């Protein structure tokens, strides 16, 4: 009994140590989206490319898992992930884009200079569509399944490492789903 009384706090301390140590490695910015397992709310963003159709919710349940990338030309990390999306597009991975908090012209210019990896791109100059989707900043990338449900949200740049280790396996699993 006495021994137990002595060991209990030590055991509790040990557990806390592990919990807090694991917590150190977590990024407090990457909160799970409230839409995980659900479809995104209705939205319609006007075109970035002149004469194009823009992006709306309806584009996100096209029967294939897709990525939805929220980006802006003024965003540094977006520049980092852009080549990854260019490569993915060449490999046939479907990606839609939402140009957040800037005029469509600025977004369009950026896509012309750096390449355009998106199937559909919507413009969100006031950031209101972003708020509908619970976007806290750029870049953010949603992984959307065949039924149009959000399965994962990546906060920050999709580096080659993030793609290989996290998003590619996820997309492959989603493609195999009925």
């Amino acid at each position, binding site marked *: 009994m006495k021994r137990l*009384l002595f060991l209990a706090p030590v055991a509790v301390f040990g557990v806390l140590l592990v919990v807090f140590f694991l917590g150190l490695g977590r990024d407090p910015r990457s*909160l799970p989206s*409230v839409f995980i397992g659900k479809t995104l709310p209705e939205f319609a963003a006007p075109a970035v490319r002149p004469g194009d159709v823009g992006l709306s919710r309806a584009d996100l349940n096209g029967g294939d898992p897709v990525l939805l990338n929220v980006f802006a030309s003024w965003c540094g990390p977006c520049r980092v992930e852009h080549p990854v999306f260019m490569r993915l597009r060449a490999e046939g991975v479907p990606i839609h884009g939402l140009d957040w908090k800037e005029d469509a012209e600025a977004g369009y210019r950026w896509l012309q200079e750096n390449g355009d990896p998106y199937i559909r791109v919507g413009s969100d100059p006031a950031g209101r569509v972003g708020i509908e*989707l619970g976007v806290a900043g750029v870049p953010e990338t949603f992984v959307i399944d065949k039924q149009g449900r959000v399965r994962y949200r990546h906060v920050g740049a999709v580096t080659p490492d993030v793609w290989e280790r996290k998003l590619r396996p996820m997309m492959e699993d989603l493609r195999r789903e009925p």
Partner: protein
Amino acid sequence: MRRLTAGLTLAFVLAAGPALAVKPDEQLADPAQEARALTLGKELRCVVCQNQSIDDSDAALARDLRLILRERIAAGDTDEQAIDFIVARYGSFVQLRPPLRADTVALWFGPLAVLILGGVGAALYIRSRRPAAATGLTAEEEAEVAEVLNSDRAR
């Protein structure tokens, strides 16, 4: 004169509100609605800076959320509806005062549980250390004490 200056200074210091990030151009014309928006804004976490409320934060997104909050209030939302509007998009993480739910029980009552457990532990420990009640000496011990004292005096 000196007293007046000191008094005025004190009055100004006390009258000065906290420095909020809310800009005049964001504010609602109706003072009652603006007051409600200010109260609600203090309850909502800015998802960019995370440890500031949207009223305190200068982040662009915090401004957007302040504007949306005011839009909802002007449109006739109750306080609860306005908060729910933002929680529906950003999750209950944005509530600086988390609601009491099954998954927040540990958050609400964890510290109390730790305090009680620690208190019980400390109480048990202190009890176990209390010396046994003093009993009188036996006749044998009395004799021994007397002997020691006497021998000391004899020396």
